[in-house]
């Protein structure tokens, strides 16, 4: 059964057609469409009115992937939160309207759950499904957290940022250094040519015992360095600063991600969110997973952590993951009649959420 997924929680307006096995028939993101003409020029970065302009063309484009269009769709999934309420409402209203008109079943999806399940989408060559349970590091512009995923509907928060998200820390570093937006890719590129030991920066909350993150102090340390020494003038110096900054950020993410696997006794780690594209992070996570800190006690003895990284388009905001998470909910027979947007992840408390939404505290 093909499920139409709609995503409008933040900057991207997206629609996709996916089934509960993770097959992706269509995966459309507004800002990636070459012809901006239907949207009246350049797509602005945010704001509900940008979603308003983009949502119908994006849904129509996704539906062209099915011979019968909407008639071939068996259910609808839409991002319910967390995100900007005004932006979420655009997707929710369109989803409600289509469901009402077609009498198709409708479910709301938690954007963060969808990110965690995106690794199961059948995208890219040689995709292998990840067996449950697994641990996931979700790091993006707006979120940074570690989760234990026992099943699509049994997800536990293990730790999260106390202040800035990792992607935001990259963006703000790029801003301080006079580089472009988004900051992650450009810092990653420059870091590859620099000396990561050139600049001494704090490793914020680097302990493996605590799975919370804090990146605000790292940003402040860089701001102080720039205030004292100015913006690096040579390409070499800039590369060194980027390499040092990225090393500090990546080291903390990688250590805690692998430590979470050891703590939970789960030798499987997935990366999710836009920061999963960072080459430094991928390399360091794999290095630590294969090293002495990456041995997980299992029934089969000490087992190295296996790392799964989805293709980039599954990491960044997209509707395929929304459609997939929704398809799984629909396949379980779940339906939503009352769909209100929420701005903040309701799963802020730590513990395990049962299917009925009740929390088992740890």
């Amino acid at each position: 059964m093909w499920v139409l997924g709609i995503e409008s929680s933040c900057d991207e307006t997206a629609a996709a057609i996916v089934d509960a096995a993770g097959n992706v028939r269509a995966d459309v993101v507004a800002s990636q469409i070459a012809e901006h003409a239907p949207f009246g020029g350049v797509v602005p970065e945010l704001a509900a009115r940008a979603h308003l302009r983009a949502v119908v063309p994006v849904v129509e484009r996704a539906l062209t992937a099915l011979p019968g269009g909407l008639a071939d769709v068996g259910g609808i999934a839409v991002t319910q939160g967390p995100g900007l309420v005004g932006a979420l409402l655009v997707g929710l209203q369109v989803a409600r309207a289509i469901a009402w008109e077609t009498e198709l079943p409708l479910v709301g999806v938690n954007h963060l759950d969808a990110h965690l399940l995106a690794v199961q989408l059948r995208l890219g060559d040689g995709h292998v499904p990840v067996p449950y349970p697994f641990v996931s590091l979700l790091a993006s512009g707006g979120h940074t957290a570690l989760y234990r995923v026992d099943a699509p509907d049994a997800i536990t928060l293990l730790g999260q940022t106390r202040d800035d998200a990792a992607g935001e820390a990259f963006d703000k570093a790029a801003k301080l250094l006079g580089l472009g937006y988004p900051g992650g890719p450009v810092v990653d590129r420059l870091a590859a040519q620099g000396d990561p030991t050139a600049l001494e920066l704090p490793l914020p909350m680097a302990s493996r015992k605590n799975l919370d993150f804090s990146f605000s102090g790292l940003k402040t340390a860089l701001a102080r360095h720039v205030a004292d020494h100015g913006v690096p003038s040579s390409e070499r110096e800039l590369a060194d600063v980027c390499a040092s900054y990225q090393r500090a950020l990546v080291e903390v993410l990688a250590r805690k991600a692998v430590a979470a696997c050891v703590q939970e006794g789960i030798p499987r780690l997935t990366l999710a969110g836009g920061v999963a594209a960072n080459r430094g992070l991928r390399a360091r996570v794999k290095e630590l997973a294969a090293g002495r800190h990456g041995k997980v006690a299992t029934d089969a003895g000490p087992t190295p952590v296996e790392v799964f990284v989805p293709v980039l388009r599954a990491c960044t905001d997209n509707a395929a993951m929304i459609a997939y998470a929704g398809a799984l909910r629909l396949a379980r027979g779940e339906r939503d009649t009352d769909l209100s947007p929420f701005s903040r992840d309701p799963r802020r408390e730590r513990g395990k959420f049962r299917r009925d939404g009740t929390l088992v505290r740890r």
Partner: protein
Amino acid sequence: MSARLDLVDEAATIRLARALAAALQPGDLVLLEGGLGAGKTFFVGALARALGVPDEIPIQSPTFALVHEYPEASPPLVHADLYRLGDADELDYLDLGDALRSGAAIVCVEWGERFVDALGAPALTLRLTPTGPTSRALDLEGRDALIAAALASPTAL
């Protein structure tokens, strides 16, 4: 009224936030100014704790989401970051005006300087300037009662 305070460390910032939390009223707009890493979100975090947001709810940077709401605070707290906002029209989608006009919440806004016409007069403006790793110079301007509360706080004495 205006004043200048030296916040010698994070503890001083927390003490000041407590003093201001007791004097702020729902419907008050607080503007926070200062560059990246100046401590704007840190101050709002300290204010949120002083208003009763429990420790297990992190006060995360709102740069990406634009607005974070804390109904757990008493009175409720809204924390916005307009850094990524294109123009004042987009403010309508954030419902900040509703929170201010209805007097439902204390509204803290980072990078709000460009939008003062649309936001209305702030009850308090805080400008943070780093003077060391954890020390800050703080310029305050706003309602007399708020400045008086800041000047009477242990941080200022």
